[in-house]
């Protein structure tokens, strides 16, 4: 097996995730796309771990998973809050930062 | 005292931090306690300063002392915690501590609106950290951090406690200086990459000679911008009058007494010894701007209606003398510059104190509305006259030793510089002394002589009071003592200055 096959797949997942983050306007879907990105990173970590013959890659992947869980928790809470305030989770309508 | 040798400078720099922490826990309402804590902090810091003065090895003023060696600080960029002082930094460090105490004393009973002594004094202590740190830093990044550290408290001092136009002034001050700093840090980075991946100043002084001449010129240009704005030299001075006019009295005093010195100190400590070749090329330009500043500042003064603004413009002129001394790149000149820095710190600081007190008493600084100060508050009037005389460079008072030797040294600048050009500068600078007499005495005539204007004639103006005496007496005494016996200062700086110019003589000497 080539190292690159994992890396390229991860890159693909990452780009798809980026597309999702940029193009989706439903808050939950954006969060899902973020999960894609995180998983792409995890694949990278584990692949490099295997390549360098060390467990550190896995350890970090585990940390990332833990953080992802936290992120999703907080993220969904925010989405809920937005929904409650605006009766919508359409991110296009969330433009409080408009200059 | 080995312990003291290695810790003195760190203590001197960071003791105010302790004060800040303590202040943070004192409730805002307990003003007396807050003031006491601040005063004690500055006094203890100054006590360390006195310890340094006593333990300073006066037989080796040219070498770095109290240097505990490099301690790794930011390993990734090779920046170390490296402090040390020599004969040039010592007087400035002591000056900075000294002024800090006096400022705390002066503000004892008159904090400017919106009052809040806690925040004010905390900012003042932060300022002291930055000032002391700048004078002891021997590492470019460390220097930079301290150099920038003073910006913030001063910004808030002007922006919060300042006059009516404070927001414009504080922003202008901040942006102008920051702009210079940006170019300066570029210069530092260039030095790092071109001269052996180090930020250590003594090492750089040894190694920077290898940088190609053209590159040196550019790097010096960056440093020049950073320091020249801080000085401030013509034509980068326009932030100064605004900042001074709007700043609270104590802010003006610190600004004039110490902050401006950071720029000139940077020239002497960093730009010139590290890049002597570039310094030679740049010196005529610096000298030219300096004398333009002398005349220009004086003309600016003559057109002023506001007392504080006038004094601010006079700073431009005085720093012109300092820069002229530096531009000659000679022992005489740089000695004069260091002396000029200290003298200007004391004298202009005092002038700002006076202006502040006058404003407090009369509620205005407008020259046209003042008059007859000698009638209503004779002691204040005398003190103002004393400072005006000192400021115009009367022999026997400190200002003279910053002015005359600078003029003297311009007659024979360092080898490699154009003598006719600098002699021309010398004559222009001498004309500047007459101008100085002009605007200062004119100001004095307008404020102190004559009889009080009608609107104030009936008011009771109280003369100099306790905290003012406490804060001023040491400064007045120093102005006089240094004026009569300049050896106190020349004796300390001379050797260190010779090491600075030695790095230079190796390049430009015959």
């Amino acid at each position, binding site marked *: 097996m080539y190292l690159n096959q994992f890396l390229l797949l991860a890159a693909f997942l990452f780009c798809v995730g*980026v597309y999702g*983050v*940029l193009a989706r*306007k439903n808050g939950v879907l954006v969060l899902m796309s973020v999960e894609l990105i995180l998983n792409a990173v995890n694949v990278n970590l584990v692949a490099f771990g295997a390549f360098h013959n060390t467990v550190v890659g896995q350890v970090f992947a585990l940390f990332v998973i833990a953080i992802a869980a936290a992120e999703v928790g907080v993220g969904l809470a925010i989405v809920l809050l937005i929904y409650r305030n605006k009766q919508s989770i359409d*991110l*296009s309508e969330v*433009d*409080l*930062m*408009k*200059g | 005292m080995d312990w003291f040798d290695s810790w003195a400078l760190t203590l001197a720099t960071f003791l105010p931090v302790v004060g800040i922490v303590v202040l943070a826990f004192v409730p805002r309402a307990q003003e007396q306690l807050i003031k006491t804590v601040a005063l004690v902090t500055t006094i203890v810091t100054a006590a360390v300063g006195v310890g340094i003065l006593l333990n300073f090895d006066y037989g080796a003023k040219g070498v770095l002392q109290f240097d505990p060696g490099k301690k790794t600080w930011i390993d990734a960029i090779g920046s170390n915690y490296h402090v040390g002082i020599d004969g040039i930094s010592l007087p400035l460090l002591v000056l900075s501590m000294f002024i800090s105490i006096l400022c705390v004393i002066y503000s004892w009973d008159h904090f400017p609106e919106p009052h809040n002594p806690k925040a004010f004094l905390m900012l003042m202590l932060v300022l002291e950290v930055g000032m002391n740190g700048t004078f002891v830093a021997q590492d470019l990044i460390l220097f930079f951090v301290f150099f920038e550290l003073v910006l913030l408290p001063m910004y808030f001092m002007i922006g919060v406690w300042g006059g009516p136009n404070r927001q414009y002034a504080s922003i*202008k001050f901040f*942006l*102008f200086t920051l702009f210079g700093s940006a170019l300066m840090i570029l210069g530092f980075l260039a030095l790092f990459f071109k001269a052996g991946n180090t930020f250590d100043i003594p090492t750089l002084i040894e190694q920077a000679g290898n940088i190609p001449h053209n590159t040196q010129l550019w790097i010096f240009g960056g440093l020049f911008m950073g320091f020249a704005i801080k000085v401030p030299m013509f*034509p980068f001075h*326009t932030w100064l009058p605004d900042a001074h006019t709007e700043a609270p009295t104590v802010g003006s005093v610190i600004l004039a007494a110490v902050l401006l010195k950071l720029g000139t100190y940077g020239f002497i400590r960093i730009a010139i010894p590290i890049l002597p070749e570039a310094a030679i090329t740049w010196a005529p330009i610096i000298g030219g701007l300096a004398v333009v500043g002398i005349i*220009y500042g004086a*003309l*600016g*003064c*003559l*057109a*002023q209606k506001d007392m504080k603004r006038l004094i601010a413009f006079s700073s431009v002129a005085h720093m012109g003398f300092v820069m002229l001394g530096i531009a000659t790149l*000679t*022992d*005489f000149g740089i*000695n004069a510059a260091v002396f000029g820095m200290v003298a200007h710190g004391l004298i202009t600081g005092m002038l700002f104190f006076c202006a502040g007190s006058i404003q407090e008493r009369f509620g205005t600084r407008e020259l046209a509305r003042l008059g*007859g100060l*000698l009638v209503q508050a004779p002691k204040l009037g005398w003190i103002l006259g004393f400072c005006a*005389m000192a400021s115009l460079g*009367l*022999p*026997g008072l400190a200002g*003279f030793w910053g002015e*005359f*030797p600078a*003029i*003297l040294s*311009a007659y024979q600048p360092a080898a490699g510089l154009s003598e006719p050009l600098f002699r021309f500068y*010398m*004559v222009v600078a*001498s*004309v500047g*002394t*007459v101008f100085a*007499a*002009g605007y200062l*005495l*004119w100001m004095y*005539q307008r404020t102190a*002589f*004559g*009889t009080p204007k009608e609107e104030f004639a009936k008011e009771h103006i109280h003369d100099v009071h306790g905290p003012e005496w406490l804060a001023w007496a040491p400064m007045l005494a120093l102005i006089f003592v240094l004026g009569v*016996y*300049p*050896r106190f200062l*020349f*004796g300390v700086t*001379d050797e260190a*200055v010779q090491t600075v110019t030695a790095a230079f003589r190796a390049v430009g000497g015959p």
Partner: protein
Amino acid sequence: MLRNAFLIPLLPVISFALILFFGKRLPGKGHEIGVLFVGGAFVLSAICAAQWISRPADYLPPTGHAEAAAVEGAHAAEQASTEAATDEEHPADGEPAAEGEHEVEPIRKAEVREVVWFETGGVEIKAGTRMDGLSVMLVFVVSMISLLVHIFSTNYMHDDRRYTHFFAALSLFTAGMLVMVTSSNTLQLLFGWEMMGLCSFMLIGHWWEEKNNSDAALKAFFTTRTGDIGLLVGISILFFAAGHTFDTETINQTALSGTISSGVLVAAAAALLCAVVGKSAQFPLHTWLPDAMAGPTPVSALIHAATMVVAGVYLIARLYGVFWAGFHIGDGGINPVALIGGVTVIIAALLAFVQNDIKKVLAYSTVSQLGYMVMALGVGAWTAGIFHLFTHAFFKGLLFLGAGSVSHSVHSFDMKKGMGGLKKTMPVTFWTFLIGSVALAGVPPLAGFWSKDEILVGASGNGYPIFLVIGLIGAFMTACYMTRCVYLTFFGEFRGHGHPHESPKAITGPLVVLAGFSILAGFLNAPGIELFSKWTENTTVLAAGVAHHEFSIGLAVVGTLMGVLGIATGFAYYVRNLGPHRLTQRNQAALTGYKILENKYYLDRLYTDMVVGGLKGPVARATYWVNQNIIDGVLNGTAAVSKAVANFTYSVLDQKLVDGLVNGAGAGAEEGGSALRVLQTGRVQQYAAFLFGAVVLMGGALVLFV
């Protein structure tokens, strides 16, 4: 005492500090301190003078053109002085015989004491005293005049608003002059010089409540300070030219040794001359001096007799080597020093005729006399110049104090409106004033005659006939206007108000003492005695080879005649109403037919013009006009122009251009900001898209190009 001469300036300094801090609490409001300490200084100076006179004249200095010793300067030479005997073996070939009958005689060795003041650039700068004949003489004169002025002031200033401060400033003023004359180097000299500038500012503006007075104080300070540009530059040039030293002796010897290039030397001398012109009120910077009369009269006496204005003359005398070599004074051509002196003599004397204020007459007279001194130094008559300084101090001090005494009594300075006929009511003042006037007029055997005569001898002997003529004309005019002054003040009818009375002892005492000196001082250097020139000779003068000339009886007679003629003219005109009156009337009537003659005030001025003789009148008026309009006008114009320039610089350049650029940068940022505002939709995802887009672009660039 010569070694401890530093005590002399120190005493008045202490006095200043004591008066300032404790004066108000003392019963005498501080005058006792001033009198005591300045008196102490006087006693010490007297001891100094005595020691100097009794000092054996056994020092043989190296001659001026001797090569090596000169460069090494005074110190080396003095250390070698114990072996002075060996100098006699020194071949005297360096001294050109052409210089005349002058041969090297032993003189008194100067007493130098120095300490290291500070070091800069590895050069030790020393402070110290240098007591030679010149300094001793001046120390004596200064402390004496100052003491008398102090005593005089205790009564004269008695009810003054700031009695204590007045004495403090008076002491400091004295100290400034003493510091200057005792100093061994130019830097310390500058100290004293500026101290006096400060004190003159304080004292001229003593009654600062009135704007006129503070204006006068400012004018004095500015004018002298303008001259000081020259002093700063000159000292700087000489510091380097003489090999990194401020030492006056070394500077003189180096200048005379010819090792300094002539260009540098001329520049230095010209720069110093500027300072002299400013401080000693020489043409064209003399305008401050009459205005300085705004100060109290004792101050005027001090300024005019012993301090301040004399400082410029002293500077030339002290650094004579520089002037001598820089302007080639010995060669007999017209040089700037003599020229300025000569012009001042005439112009100031003319002005003295048109004044009604007694102090202004005396002020212009001082300017004129200073012109004499400068001219004397310029024509190479060094001894004559400082001898005139010496004698002038006594009688000018006397005249000013006398004027003070008069005004104390009549409360006015206007000779025409406030005085007249005081001869009977103020006999002591009258007689002493008369003695002073006669001395000033140069009537033998009073002091002024001897010194003026010596100047004339010097001018003719050194080949400056034109300055001889100027000197004679000046002598005539001086005698004439002093006659007018004395007549207006003391003769005729009293024209003022109130009842004039003789002044108390504190005022008349000093007058009597000074009158005594005015009579006797001249004999010190009378032919056959010539003690003064022996006492004051110093190494510089010897090295320069200043020529001495024998007393000439013919010249003395001519000089005396001019003085007497002046007095006679004045007497004839004022007292006897002779001569020119009718001439004037006829001329005016014939030529213009005006009835202006009925206008008494106008007539007065016209007569005054006629006294100086026909066409001289318009000249004097023109001079006064030039004085008031052109010179003063240039000063005022310069101020106005610089103010205009300043306003322009400030309001246009600074506020609009430079500041405008800065603000423009801000405005530019704002414009750009509003342009970019369109992009700022507030939608985070769009930002993210831009962010990633930018990252991709940069990353791509990195991949492609690196």
